[in-house]
């Protein structure tokens, strides 16, 4: 039985339809995938049935008829292994993504760019960047969260050891602070190192926001719960908030609520699908299709991912927030689909 809870609200469907039309008229590759299966008629009737596989951004730079100029940029995913995604963002898309991030994070953390607080990045200043390749997603996220903070303090040296001077500064007073880092980096180079050195402290009135890189963390058997309890034990920080987002859909991230669920927001939505790609019902794990209503310079508005997760409910979360709430459970097992032609 298909659960209507897994569908989109009417207003989001309308916006999605408009985005489909926009990318259809402006992006040749998007148009080809629509025409090949005659999906044009579905734009209005079933807009959520139209999606691109997120890996297409690894093999192609998909653009929606936007001129390349000094204001446009290519965002590159930070993965160390395999091919990287390359996202073509023009000024308009970038600005709308920054605004969305500001609104989503601002509301969740009750922070405002007008009252900036000290900003600590659990990462190194020297993230390897080859500028000719584009802007690294990690760098972009650090800068994105900087909207709420004063100039960033980097807690890790270039060799990923903890910069003790910055750490001292972090724990020297009780004023509210914003800490940000990639889950994997926070876990491996900060939390593990604190354990090794037998250090723990209290950071009152503050926030740790972390996301991305969770695939590696899960691989090591570190669940979100375990991560949280480590953070509580070592940093005793007031708020530890996870988010789910992807470089292809910068800005419209899904933030974790006080009850540990991820929530959709006005800029995003999420759909879970079965193995036959039907909508899955509530509490049944499904393949994640992630929707962002922001991208206009590239067709990244509706993406089928290789993650799986589960819809937990609609409007009923104990945190009080409305809309869908869900959990991400991990990465689909990579059943390697091989061809006779693949020797390697």
């Amino acid at each position, binding site marked *: 039985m298909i659960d209507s809870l897994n569908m989109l609200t009417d207003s989001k469907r309308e916006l999605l339809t408009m985005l489909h039309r926009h990318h259809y008229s402006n992006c040749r590759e998007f148009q080809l995938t629509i025409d090949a299966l005659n999906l044009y008629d579905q734009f209005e009737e079933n807009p959520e049935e139209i999606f691109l*596989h997120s890996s297409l951004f690894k093999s192609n730079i998909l653009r929606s008829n936007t001129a390349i100029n000094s204001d446009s940029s290519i965002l590159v995913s930070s993965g160390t292994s395999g091919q990287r995604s390359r996202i073509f963002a023009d000024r308009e898309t970038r600005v709308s993504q920054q605004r969305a991030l500001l609104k989503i994070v601002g509301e969740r953390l009750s922070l405002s760019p007008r009252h900036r607080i000290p900003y600590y990045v659990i990462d190194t200043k020297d993230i390897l960047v080859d500028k000719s390749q584009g802007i690294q997603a990690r760098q972009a996220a650090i800068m994105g969260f900087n909207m709420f903070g004063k100039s960033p303090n980097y807690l890790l040296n270039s060799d990923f050891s903890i910069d003790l001077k910055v750490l001292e500064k972090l724990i020297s007073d009780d004023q509210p602070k914003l800490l940000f880092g990639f889950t994997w980096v926070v876990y491996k180079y900060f939390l593990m190192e604190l354990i090794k050195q037998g250090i723990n402290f209290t950071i009152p009135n503050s926030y740790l926001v972390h996301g991305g890189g969770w695939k590696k963390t899960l691989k090591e058997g570190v669940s979100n719960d375990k991560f949280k309890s480590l953070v509580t034990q070592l940093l005793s920080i007031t708020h530890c908030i996870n988010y789910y987002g992807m470089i292809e859909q910068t800005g419209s991230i899904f933030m974790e609520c006080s009850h540990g669920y991820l929530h959709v927001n006005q800029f995003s939505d999420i759909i879970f699908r079965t193995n036959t790609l039907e909508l899955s019902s509530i509490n049944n794990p499904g393949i994640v299709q992630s929707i962002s209503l922001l991208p206009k310079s590239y067709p990244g508005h509706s993406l089928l*991912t290789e993650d799986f997760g589960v819809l937990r409910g609609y409007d009923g979360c104990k945190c009080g927030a409305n809309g869908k709430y869900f959990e991400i459970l991990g990465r689909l*097992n990579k059943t390697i689909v091989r061809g*006779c032609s693949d020797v*390697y």
Partner: protein
Amino acid sequence: MFIDTPDKSEQLLANLLEAKNITNHGLNVRSELLNKLGMLIRKKAIDHKDKELLALSNYFLEVSDYKKIIGNKILQPRGLVFHIPSSNITYMPFYSWATSFLVGNINVVRLSRRANLNSLRLILNFFSSVSSKLYVNQYFVLPDYFNSIMNGCLGSIDLRLIWGNRDTISTIRKDSPLSIGLDLSFPDRYSACLISSNYYKVASDTQISQICKLFQNDSLDGSFGACSSPHLLIWISEESPSSDNFPLLYDLNTFIKNDVQEYGSISTENIRKFQESIITNDFSFKYLALGKYKGRPFLLYQDDLKLLPTFLQNASQSATIVLYIKSISEIKNVLPKNIQSMTYSPGISSEELSSLVADLDSNLPDRIIPLGRALDFDVVWDGYNLLEIFGRLVTFK
């Protein structure tokens, strides 16, 4: 021996350059060893209900009974054989190896980077339970070391087998040419499947789920990643299928296991493959989308039959092309050349098949086999008897 370190790799190269034409225990001993290995693996496969492993053990047993295949002909080893297997079937390296081992060759087998090394190690562990003799002159090499070993002894290789696509084959041949050895390749092909809707219409639920099970088996769980998987589906029916009226797709979809974590990646991968393929290949042919099976579209071909081979070439990696014919006698008019395997569903009689074989004449696929058997590996592959390829037939009058 498992070659997984630079030291072992250097040692192997030195050995290969020095020692050649070492007799490997005699044909009867080898056949017995292969038989024992097959029996052990078979037991494991049955215990663990592992279909792929069972197929491998059956192949070992079949080949070890070599007299059934070559009769009283005398087979001599060729010498040093290099195997470059495809990675679509986990145990492919061992199919290629077993045949050549039986003949008595020194074998160097490349293990795929993408293959599940644990599964491959499992087989190698069985070697030691059978006999250390199995290790003599048999080398299984991690891809990191394979090329340097191969390039180090190109002049000494007697036979090289490449199971890959045309690009892979020509790259290997260009970068690592053999001086005198025989170079044999099995380029990728596509395969067909014949289903009679007359049978389908009257089949019971059990029979239908059996057909779905066999089809799923042939399609490698819906990935269609083998050249013997059905890329062309010939649907024999009085009426044309449509998106509302194609019961096979509906049934196949209801048959799918819904463990998303375990099986979801085939569906997403099929979507990816199709979208990539649409972007890079020409799909401007007339066809009708009938629906999807695990994300893979089934497209009813409606264009000029002369263009079908081109469309198959562009689309068959990412979509299954459906041809609809009214009776089995029409196949000779529609079947493209160069089909590797053709499976047939229940409901097609042996008389019909015999007359089909006669009709097709020079256009026969390499194998015509029942539905569900597409992935079985045969000693005769792509029209070659592998035992005879791996050995030298001695004339004795």
